[in-house]
């Protein structure tokens, strides 16, 4: 369990911009952070591989998709907690 060397606010901003650029009716504001991205169809299945690539690029480490669950990518909050928060499992 290592503390991330990435800045979570920057990560959040990058995720918001990326999601807003692909979704209809989604603004890159902090209000997006708690939105259930796939359940609420902000993103679709076609976006998932790209999202994982983005997470990998931001954390500079591969994501093991064999253990990935829906909860890990449910929202920006969930992504940050899973991959980027201090103490997150890396």
């Amino acid at each position, binding site marked *: 369990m290592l503390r991330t060397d990435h800045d979570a606010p920057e990560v959040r901003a990058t995720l918001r911009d990326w999601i807003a650029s692909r979704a209809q009716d989604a603004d890159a504001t902090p209000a997006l952070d708690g939105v259930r991205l*796939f*359940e609420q*169809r902000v993103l*679709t*299945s*076609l*976006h*998932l*591989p790209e999202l*994982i690539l983005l997470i990998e690029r931001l954390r500079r480490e591969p994501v093991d*998709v064999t253990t*990935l*669950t*829906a909860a*890990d*990518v449910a929202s920006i909050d969930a992504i940050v907690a899973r991959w980027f928060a201090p103490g997150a499992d890396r």
Partner: protein
Amino acid sequence: MTAASPATRTDRLGEVGLTWHDSGQVSLRGPLLALLRDCDRAFLALAAAWRAVDEVHPALIPAAALDRVGYLDSFPHLANFAVALDAGDANLEAFRAGEPVDPDGQVRLTRLAPVRELLTPAACYHLYPQHEGEELGPVRYLTTRNTCFRRETHYQPLRRQRSFQMRELVCLGAREQVVAFLDRARTLTDRLLRALGLPVTWEIAHDPFFRPAENPQRLFQQVHATKQEAVYGGDLAVASVNLHEDHFGAAFSITSTGATASSGCVAFGLERWLFALTDRYGPHPATWPDVRAAARQALDEAAAP
């Protein structure tokens, strides 16, 4: 559970109505056909719990409809196309004159007419284009059965066939309605299997995508566990519960109270239920359980407080 070899099992079931064809298909008659019909009536009884509207659709489905939902991209290896000869007189004469079938049974085709249709790969694929552009209100429940066709690398009687019967129950509506339907459908299916004494495990599954590593649908299915199967005997899926999200609703502009409809289905492979029942209870009809009574029991249990 019997431990008969596949060949012995097929021979024994021959006495109660099974004929296995080298093409990977079965013919059914007598007790086994009656059992298949009883299974379908049991599934219809479950469908009645939602007052699902039954629909009958043809054997062929337009390739363009399947292409709109990515079927030909995701499953080209499973596709069976409906082909016909070009109707030109000279072409037909050339076909007839050329000994149409060779000694190996292979057809010596001459020029083909444009191919526009496939043999149905899954029963529910017909429902979405059928309801294209419709506003369904809060929720709509449908059911349909069809003979489905899949090209596989190998076939086994009642387990994996080139053509087989599939009954599906489908819910179209708001996502929460669909999720609730799938949850209840899984419970009812599980109760039916228990009432029949068929032990299964529910497992997260995925469809057999072509080049799965390259297919985002495959990854999404894995991560979001959108497909669950009731697995009998460790390796035979007799039912699957599938959340499609808005994949079909978006492709065919189907809406539910103004928003793109989500959908989900529960699918039953009828021949596989015959396999499970005859594997569990043997080839003698007198020992088979009453499938329709088991469906009533499952529904009664589900209705009990």
